[in-house]
């Protein structure tokens, strides 16, 4: 059963089906927020808020459009609204070290763990727009056309933005590594 069909049923009042979408997307959405904020509790709250909005605004879902684009658009709004309320304050990435340590698998060699830490640190130094597009593309594994729908731009523009973000990230990554 496609996401669109399931969400269509939810929007018509079959709320039980929301559980299917929650099980399919909770991990992805939690990791989206986690890589955006590097704050674990906050990411958990944002994920909770996202699914609350999904149910609250269920009737606004258009079954002929992609569920994935719709849910990521809500996720971006949840993230944006959180920081708008804080009037310009941005994440302090309080759990950056802890999350990097947690993600570093016990069996990994030291070099791999250090690379993951440098990557996370470099990600926090990117501007938000570039960090977001890399998260969508490289961590969430979305295709260019899917990202284009979420960010409301063409597939070509997405590709250019991703390439720029990768180059910027490369510079920051080796800056972090050399410090």
């Amino acid at each position, binding site marked *: 059963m496609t996401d669109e069909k399931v969400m269509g049923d939810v929007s018509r*009042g079959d*709320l*039980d089906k*929301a*559980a*299917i979408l*929650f*099980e*399919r997307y*909770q*991990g992805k959405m*939690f*990791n989206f927020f*986690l890589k955006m904020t590097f704050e*674990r509790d906050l*990411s*958990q709250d944002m*994920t*909770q808020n996202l*699914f*609350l909005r999904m*149910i609250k605004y269920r009737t606004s879902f258009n079954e002929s459009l992609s569920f994935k684009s719709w849910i990521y658009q809500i996720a971006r709004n949840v993230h944006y609204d959180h920081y708008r309320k804080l009037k310009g304050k941005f994440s302090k990435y309080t759990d950056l070290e802890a*999350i990097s340590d*947690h*993600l570093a*698998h016990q069996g990994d060699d030291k070099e*791999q763990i250090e*690379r*993951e830490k*440098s*990557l996370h640190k470099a990600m926090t130094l990117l501007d938000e727009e570039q960090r977001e597009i*890399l998260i969508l593309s*490289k*961590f969430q594994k979305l295709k260019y056309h899917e990202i284009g729908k979420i960010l409301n731009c063409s597939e070509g523009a997405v590709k250019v933005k991703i*390439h720029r973000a*990768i*180059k910027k*990230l*490369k510079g920051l*990554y*080796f800056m972090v590594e050399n410090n």
Partner: protein
Amino acid sequence: MDNDNLKDKLVDFIEGKLPPQEEVEIQHLLAEDEELFKEYDQLRIVLESLENSREATPDHSLSTHFYEMLSEEKTKQASANHLGKFSVIYNNARSIWKNNLVVRIAASITIFLAGYILDKNIQVEEIQTTEIATLKEELESTKTLVMLSLLKQESASDRLQAVNISYEMEEADNQIINALIHTLNTDQNDNVRLAACEALGHYTDKPLVINALIETLTQQQDPEIQLVIIDLLVKSKEKRAIPQIRTLLETQEVIQTVRNKANEGIGQLL
């Protein structure tokens, strides 16, 4: 190819997205140009790090809160349906009352409906309590359906989620237990099998689970799973497991850590 264009192509080259002809061209350039090779190597490291970056797992509380919120929404939806019926009756009564030509009839109908409405209000709380119980039951059965359907998915992460749902069940019935046993015995992914094994660990009070764990011990190849099963059987003080643990010890491929655990387990069970 100018320099900027070339650097753009490097990303596509690393990701294997270039047509064969351009790929060969880049390979030649990389062999000749040391600076370009350095650029390529750095990009490769960053792209590999992005590719290999792992995902974190949310706490179980996320799931608990979601299902509570869903249950509340369903209660609200059910109440809204009742209020809808109430207002239809009320509006009908009002329109009849306003019709002066049939005042007497309207009065009697209104009185009758008022009585009905009062009775309804008294019953609302009772209805809601019953509804909440029914909704809880429905939610449990939805979770079962979701779990069983996710277990059949091709993606290992979907199947892993299915196993995790079993933790949220108030009481796992035989259908759930059998699905977990089937997963432990047949799933192709080590992580999914291990998760199923750990999930079954919550139900070792059920003979069905203990029997399945004893039976599967010698069939499992993954040392982590072997360790979890031995641990569960020892904690359950299950003496019937001793012959199977001994058989496992006779298997050549079994690693030393598992052998130690198995010998220690037999010692505790004897």
